[in-house]
């Protein structure tokens, strides 16, 4: 048997990477090496690892953005046995993840000092989580996608529970971990059924298979597809699967909540778009399956918008309010997913909205992590009373973010929502648009209430006037700038998003 082992399954072309593939891999390698260096630095004992790890993290994320920027206009490229794809789509999302991780790192520095939690592993976990997100957005194989999803989630589970002395933080981490694992198991079962019914885990191959033989859209395939969809709907916290979210968002440290609402959600949606396309959504391969998928997503979107906005009305804790508002925004994003195949811009309004949402929500959470007292106390509405006289710049930044979240021009939130709803009108989803507009009208109330408290109420007590951290101020300024730029120049962002989506359409044949 030894001698006749000439026959081998190893394909020699898989053992090397071409020059182009190496270049495309650079952002991922950079972030991984940076995370490893930060990990090594975090065990040094002769000086405090605080500054070195912080600086290495920022350099890693900045360098990652730079490396991605260099390859963003490169050709579409596959690597590792067609498991990974480097296209414009993944590059745009990589920049989004890296920037949101960088903002989180900036916002955390002073915050961790204040909380007495300045442990270097925190930054290492953020870096690894960002790496997981990047891999997720650029994987086209369900196995890699799942491992990347777990890489991202595992790091975030630990970050959610980072404030160990706080019971709420522990509860949030435990809840998120148990429910997240259950969702991962459902997703994995779906992946197994898809593999069983098409013979491949590669999403491009799955699409090619069912396009060639539509009879392969069997009941088993449908169940697999449904289970995968449920897994993703859990990750983006759409309504029937949203129960975990408010507690988790309230319990985790404020910068991490910001990271979860933006990076995590964007990563889940980035993969969600790829997967729904590859399951044949919008290609009318199987009419019944197509209609069921559309109707289920439709119901989820409506419930998500309505429940998210209505419950947010009743919240007095700012973090909890933004958690419910984040659910509502998931609903708007689901509209983009539903109408993606039916309008001229495809899924690009969704990407614009994800960018806009990332900027405004991250900004809001940076401001909140600056305002928060120890263990995130002091984030109730009445604590914000009279903020405009105490900390005028911070109050102003918050107003920009809240206006944007409410969708008031000339901010990013307005531009994003306008494009999203316009594409829905084009796709003929008028009831969906009407519901979305009504829901955003409701949302204006609870966003503006915060502004009313900040500007028109007398301050209740006189909390200690903490000096703003330079890093958080930097992050806030950046986010205000992005929110305004996206709001004033939406067509440029749309062009970037269109290019990204076009590379995706080509990829899916």
């Amino acid at each position: 048997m030894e001698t006749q082992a000439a026959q081998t399954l190893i394909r020699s072309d898989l053992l090397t990477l071409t020059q182009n593939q190496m270049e495309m891999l650079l952002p991922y390698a950079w972030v991984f090496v940076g995370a490893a260096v930060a990990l090594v630095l975090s065990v040094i004992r002769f000086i405090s690892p605080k500054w070195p790890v912080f600086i290495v993290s920022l350099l890693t994320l900045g360098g990652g953005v730079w490396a991605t920027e260099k390859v963003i206009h490169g050709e579409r490229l596959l690597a590792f046995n067609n498991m990974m794809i480097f296209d414009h789509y993944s590059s745009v999302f990589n920049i989004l993840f890296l920037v949101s991780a960088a903002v989180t790192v900036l916002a955390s520095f002073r915050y961790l000092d204040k909380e007495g939690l300045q442990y270097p592993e925190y930054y290492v976990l953020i870096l690894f989580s960002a790496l997981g997100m990047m891999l997720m957005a650029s994987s086209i194989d369900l196995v890699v996608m799942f491992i990347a999803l777990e890489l991202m989630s595992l790091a975030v589970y630990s970050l959610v529970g980072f404030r160990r002395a706080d019971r709420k933080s522990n509860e949030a981490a435990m809840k998120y971990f148990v429910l997240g694992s259950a969702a991962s198991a459902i997703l994995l079962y779906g992946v197994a059924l898809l593999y069983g019914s098409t013979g491949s885990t590669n999403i491009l191959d799955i699409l090619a298979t069912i396009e060639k033989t539509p009879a392969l859209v069997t009941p088993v395939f449908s169940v697999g597809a449904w289970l995968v969809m449920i897994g993703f709907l859990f990750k983006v916290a759409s309504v029937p699967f949203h129960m975990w979210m408010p507690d988790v968002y309230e319990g985790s440290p404020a910068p991490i909540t910001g990271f979860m609402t933006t990076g995590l959600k964007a990563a889940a949606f980035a993969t969600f778009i790829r997967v729904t396309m590859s399951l044949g959504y919008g290609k009318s391969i199987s009419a019944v399956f197509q209609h069921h998928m559309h109707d289920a997503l439709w119901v989820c979107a409506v419930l998500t918008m309505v429940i998210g906005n209505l419950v947010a009305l009743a919240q007095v804790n700012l973090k909890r309010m933004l958690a419910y508002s984040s659910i509502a925004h998931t609903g708007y994003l689901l509209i983009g997913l539903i109408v993606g195949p039916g309008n001229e811009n495809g899924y690009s309004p969704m990407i614009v909205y994800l960018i806009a949402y990332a900027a405004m929500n991250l900004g809001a959470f940076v401001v909140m992590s600056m305002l928060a007292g120890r263990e995130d106390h002091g984030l109730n509405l009445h604590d914000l009373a009279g903020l405009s006289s105490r900390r005028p710049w911070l109050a102003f930044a918050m107003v920009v973010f809240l206006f944007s979240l409410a969708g008031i021009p000339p901010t990013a939130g307005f531009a994003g929502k306008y494009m999203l709803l316009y594409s829905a009108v084009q796709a003929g989803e008028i009831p969906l648009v009407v519901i979305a507009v009504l829901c955003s009208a409701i949302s204006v109330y609870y966003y503006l209430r915060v502004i009313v408290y900040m500007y028109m109420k007398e301050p209740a007590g006189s909390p200690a006037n903490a000096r703003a951290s330079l890093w958080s101020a930097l992050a806030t300024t950046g986010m205000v700038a992005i929110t305004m730029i996206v709001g004033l120049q939406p067509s440029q962002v749309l062009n970037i998003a269109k290019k990204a989506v076009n590379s995706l359409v080509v990829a899916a044949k």
Partner: protein
Amino acid sequence: MNSPAVFADVSPYFFFIFAGMAILFSTMVVFKKNPASSAFSLVLVFFAFAGIYAAMDAHLVAALQILVYAGAIMVLFVFVIMLLSSDVPSLDMKRSGLMTRIAAVSAVALLLVGLIYVFKNNPSLLPKGPHSPEKIAQVGGNTRAISQLMFSDYLLPFELTSVLLLVGIVGSVALAKRKMGGTK
């Protein structure tokens, strides 16, 4: 590897025996109050799975299942349970309400009926994967095939798994190493 035909006529019975064992012991994992007996039921579930894999000619996976899951991972579980058992008296959680229980049971029943329906009505034109038993036999057996694939076709997931394990370790150490409320 030599003659799967001999197994072919008995393997359905093996499947039903092992699958029945797996279901029985998994329900015991859920319903046992004592964490230690839950853990030992889980070991038996893993053994049943190993039996199913062996009946499907996947001998390496069966062996690994026993070594890794039933051996290493479960021993770790049992150690953790033993270390914790002094301050966690039992896993007897607060009873959930009647409505929750009815909802849970009906959801599980619905899922079961749905899955049975789906699998019964599935037309049998499922495509074969690329790695048929004959092809594996040509290459020289399961072990050889898996190791060759792991370092070529599936290199990326294999390497990423190690990153995943690293993150798991970093995360758990970060959470476990410090005292509650203390600074270090």
